[in-house]
């Protein structure tokens, strides 16, 4: 992955951020349990596709109208336990899914062009920007795609068993930026 990095004005790099804690959260957003969970998280649950909510070291990503993914650097059991206390037996579910996905970070001036080779989404800044995260596909792999900053830096969350393939797919897509631009 490191060897595939391209520098310069068409630069793009790929790195893995393994072992990020991920907790899947499902609860009715109109319920009192959702209010308690928002208090525990310290941020309102995003209510719209693409929205995320950051609260200190945690990020909450919208997955569906009653489903979110909580990303954290803390230990998975601690995050899940805290949320489960806030849910307090109300209808809903909190599952530690840290082993479900890994994190690939694609960054650099050419990162958007690399993704555009296989992502059906409009990634142009007029339609997609920093602080947005959506579920989509890159190549044939379903991923959660999060744009972190304007560099642009993207974080891709593929399922673990697809991660190796997706990394190879991205390395292959990155290789053309090593050479000069073809007019």
């Amino acid at each position, binding site marked *: 992955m490191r060897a595939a990095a391209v520098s310069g004005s068409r630069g793009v790099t790929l790195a893995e951020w393994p072992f990020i804690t991920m907790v899947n959260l499902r609860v009715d957003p109109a319920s009192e349990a959702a209010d308690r969970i928002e208090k525990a998280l310290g941020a309102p649950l995003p209510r719209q*596709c693409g929205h995320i909510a950051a609260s200190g070291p945690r990020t909450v990503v919208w*997955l569906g*109208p009653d*489903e979110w993914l909580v990303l954290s650097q803390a230990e998975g059991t601690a995050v899940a336990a805290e949320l489960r206390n806030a849910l307090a037996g109300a209808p809903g579910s909190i599952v530690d899914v840290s082993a479900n996905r890994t994190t690939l970070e694609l960054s650099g001036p050419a990162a958007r062009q690399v993704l555009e080779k296989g992502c*059906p989404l409009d990634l142009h800044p007029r339609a997609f920007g920093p602080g947005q995260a959506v*579920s*989509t*596909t890159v190549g044939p792999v*379903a991923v959660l795609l999060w744009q972190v900053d304007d560099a642009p830096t993207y974080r891709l969350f593929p399922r673990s068993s697809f991660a190796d393939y997706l990394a190879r797919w991205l390395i292959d897509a990155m290789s053309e930026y090593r050479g000069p631009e073809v007019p």
Partner: protein
Amino acid sequence: MLLITCPWCGPRDETEYHYGGQAHLPYPHAPADLDDRQWAEYVFYRDNTKGPFAERWMHSTGCRRWFNVLRDTVTNDVLAVYRLDEPRPELPQAGGNR
């Protein structure tokens, strides 16, 4: 390629969805009373509409929710998208100018 607007996620390519067949097929009220022929009709028989057709789709790589789409089977136009708890919308000019 169809461009389908998910009620929750907005417009996405057809490749993000799975097709679920004809919509609005209620489960039989008294399933125990059905004979083989009626069961076969419930399970296998589907309309083959020419024109606006209500069908189910699921946004499988997005929010993973089922919803209904009204699609014109002649032109492949997506005429309307609505949630499962909403009634089938009336089209102002169903059948159009064909």
